[in-house]
């Protein structure tokens, strides 16, 4: 037999080395993948609104006007707690009359000039987004209505459960703060304080 003990041993040891190398490659591959995965999941902290509804109501002594838009869009970044919510001003429906709706769009909100109302900012409290629960938080940001920006702190309630965040908020907007003037003649029909309620469901963005 041309083989000697040493040669055999070498062969075996070579195989052994290959095996080790292969295992190492496997492990490092898995590691690399998992790092990628972690990195990927870490990057993906953006939640987007899948269903969003915004309602405003003006409760004046002579008339109550309510209008709703289902076209609330927006996103929340849970890594830095920043958010941005948008709604198209022309998407509001449910006025008491067609005329009223036109008035709203043309005279008050001026939707051609100001197509969107926006609220962007940051949640003040540190929210543990990975833990399901109900959190009462305050959102600090710039509220842009009628082209006039106002800094606001708005209270809202976050309900976090399996990968969705539900946002509910009720707050008031004073027309005067956003440069919307009410003609004297409709003073009793439009309240200077507009009550706004927002309900939105956010889901993790998947791309």
């Amino acid at each position, binding site marked *: 037999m041309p083989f000697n003990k040493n040669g055999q041993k070498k062969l075996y040891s070579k195989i052994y080395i290959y095996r080790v190398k292969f295992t190492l490659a496997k492990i490092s591959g898995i590691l690399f993948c998992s790092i990628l995965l972690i990195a990927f999941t870490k990057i993906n902290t953006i939640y987007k609104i899948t269903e969003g509804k915004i309602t405003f109501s003006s409760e004046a002594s002579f008339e109550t006007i309510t209008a709703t838009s289902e076209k609330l869009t927006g996103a929340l970044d849970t890594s830095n707690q920043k958010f941005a919510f948008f709604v198209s001003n022309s998407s509001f429906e449910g006025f008491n009359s067609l005329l009223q709706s036109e008035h709203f769009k043309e005279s008050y909100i001026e939707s051609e000039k100001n197509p969107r109302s926006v609220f962007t900012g940051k949640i003040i409290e540190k929210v543990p987004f990975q833990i399901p629960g109900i959190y009462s938080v305050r959102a600090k940001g710039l509220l842009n209505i009628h082209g006039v920006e106002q800094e*606001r702190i708005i209270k809202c309630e976050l309900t976090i459960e399996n990968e969705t965040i539900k946002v509910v908020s009720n707050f008031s907007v004073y027309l005067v703060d956003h440069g919307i003037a009410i003609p004297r003649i409709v003073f009793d029909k439009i309240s200077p304080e507009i009550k706004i309620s927002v309900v939105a469901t956010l889901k993790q963005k998947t791309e």
Partner: protein
Amino acid sequence: MIKQLIKGFITLFIGFIPAIILAQTPFIRTIEVDKTIQDIKVQEIVQDKNKLMWLGTNKGLYRYDGTSFKAITIDNKNEEISVTSLFCDSKGVVWVGLKKGSIFYFKNDSIKPFDIEEGNPKETINGIAEDTYGNIWFATYGEGLYVWNHKNFYNFGEEDGLDDESAYCLVADNKGNVWCGTDAGITACSFLNEKKQIKNYSTKDGLSDNIIKRLIWDKNGFLWFGTDNFGIGKLYPDSNKVVIPESFSAWNKGSVESMLLMEHEVWIGTNENGLIDYEFSGNNRIRNFYGNAGFNYSSVQCLFRDDEGNIWIASKDHLAQSPGERIEFLKSINGIPFKNINSVLVDRNKNVWYSDEEGLHQLSFISDGTIVNTSFVIPKLKLPFKILSIYQDAFGFIWIGTFDHGVFRIEIATGKSIQIDDKKGLTNQSVLSISGKQSTLWLASLSGAIKIELGDDALKLNCAYQVDYFNSENGLNNNFIYQVLQDRKGRVWFAQDGKGISMLDRDGFHQFGEEDGIKAKTFYSITEDINGGIWFASANNGLYRYKNQQNFQINFLTGLQKTKNYQFYHYDLSNGLQSLHISGLCADNVGNVAVVYNDGIGLFNLDSESFSWLEESDGINTVDADLNTTSLAPDGVIWVGAKNQFIEINTSLEKLRKTPYLSFNIITALLDPFDFSIYQTIPASKNHITFSFQGIWFSNPTDVNYQYKMEGLNRDWINTRDKTATFPDLDPGRYTLRLRCSKTTDFSGSNEIIYSFAIANPMYKQWWFTTLLIIVLIAITWIFLKIRDQRVNFVQRLEKEKLASQFETLKNQVNPHFLFNSFNTLANIIDEDKGKAIEYIEKLTDFFRQILIHREKDLIKLEEELEIINDYVYLQQQRFENALVINITVSENQSRHYLIPPLALQLLVENAIKHNSLTTSNPLIIDLYFDYEFFVVKNNLQPKLNKEPSTGTGLQNITRRMEMLGLPSIEVEKTETHFIVKFKLADKKQSDMISITPALFVVK
């Protein structure tokens, strides 16, 4: 010569015996907040506009008026009541910040949550401030700053440019900014027209530490900061300059938890090393009070100075109060207390010279807070001896006046001395006091005053001098002189034992005694105030003051002329003194005169012309000072050598507020509080008025006395120590309550607060009520008269009708027809039957008697009426026999129960007989019966052919009488065959009413 040198050497050698002692300490007394709660820690202190003290503790909020703590209940949803910040804004609202971020505010005597749409923070509120625009700021630990512009709530966070969101403290400046200390340095923020401006300062800008725990502004525009690890420093924001005092270059006392800035010192409260005092003006001395007498608090969380100038110290488990740098005490050297201090002098280098039974000593102060005590041994003086006075001349030499050994002049640097005694020309060896001006010295001795004039070589210890004597032989009143004072005008004043005051001026000696209003004989001390007024302390008759005002008198010959008439003002117990036995006087250079007596020290302020007394809260119990133991230091501090301690009084830091601050707390009308900021008219039903008030005087709360006078009720002032005054039953009228308070029993010059109000007239005294009452009375009288008239008319009418009816009946009965018929019938019967005739006559008489009996009455029983009918029918039946049938169907009950106007039925029956033909074949049948409630008289109708004329009065008469008695009218029904009369009868009840009412109203 050699001997002298040796002596001088010995003096030098044993002269200095230095000893290092501990620093002086302020007086501190402890106050217990709430005994009922364990582990209570005061964390924040603030004073409101009524000067009440607010204490924020870990167990809630308290308000302190000097005598009691009132717990203010915070009704917080999350049950967190640990108060971490307190602030009183310019409108008097007290803001309360809690550990878990909630904000409350106290306004109009109640505490409310700060309920805003934006919600409260959720992290600890560490500071509250108000900027010059009126915005209220809140600093949180973790959420940055918040600002409320009385409309919206805004947040300042890292995204706005804040270096760090964890803030420890917040102060406002006078330019519209607020400054906050954070974990990353100092941040200045402003908020104007909703625009945020932020500027950060950190170690890059020269701060000693990034963690800034406390901030305070000083008068010069420096922002003092206290750091976590490197002591304190100053930031000058205009030039961004940072100054770290040299004394803090090696700080090792840990975190600065609190800071308090005073005029000359800053107090620093640390976490573990107690209270540290840094004197920034002067010698930059740092002292640590921790462990010194009376101060054992290792952790000082909060320091606050109230508007009186008292300092409040919040430690972990104590609240303490202190007069601060105003008064300090020096009690011992290395634990050995001072004993029997004889005389005191503070020299030009602020060294304190004093003498006791062991000789002369000098205290000098080192900037590290220690004091060096040096004893000077004077070789010629052997124990026992007594040094009575110490003086420093214009050339820097120290002079001591001794008992029986003359005076010594000592060179400070070498300790060498020279003695001037009887051998050198002194007439008396006992020098009670030394004073002087420039090169002139005045010595007060037991044999007159001695004047020493130093020669031109006075800078040498052993200089030339000249001695002059003044005694009873050349102008003084007395040879026993306690003190001599040469004033700034060159006059020399002598305080004498027994003969009052003497004065020497260019015109020679003047004596002042009883004719000048000076009752005292013995004077101990003289001082000159900054206005040139001269003060004299008498041994047992208080103080005298010569105001140094020129008195002018108009002389008609020479015009305006100065008089020589000196005027002395006397102060005794009646005008502000607390003791008549004054031992020492010392004027400072800011307008005060310190007055030392056995049990205390007073300060007379020349501006306010009033005394204030150092109180027990200042730590002064007994002074018991010797003569010559008060001395004014070059820094303005007055040193008093009391028997066993030195008292340092910083008169320039007199109490900021000198009298109690008086305010109404609550005013109630019948226990209901009402708004007393406006004039009120209180209804008479609530005329029980209670005033609750407080005079805030934290320096000595128990000394506050009150006096009130209700104008409109009281003539004199009423004294009280209570904090309430109740007026239980005030008559209507206008009132003004005048209230004043004082820290003594003397109320002159005390501030007064008033409240005017009125008690309204009671309702019955109001004009509208009186008018209404008169109207109602008139109306009632009118109605009464009207009703009476009606009733009288009614009765009269009834009477008339009755008369008419009687007349009718009588007329009918006495009618010749009836009588003729009756007698005719009777004539027929008499023949036939005598018995029947008698019966007939009886019935007839009975009939007439019945008529007579009943005619006066309004109603008679149906029974009685039926009896009349029976009689009548009997009489008629005798005549018509079977042609008249009468059927009465009335039960006995009915006949008793019902009532009827008399002769009503008789009239109806008679009418029936009268108007119908009666024949045996067609008899007249009259039925009387009840048809339910109606009584019916019914007869068949067979009218006579020749009708008897009918007057109709009978039926009419009955109808009217029935009406008047309130009975429904008669129904008359005439059919073909029958004539029916129906009417209701009265029952007994109705008859009662009818019989009573006429009786009441009948006036005849």
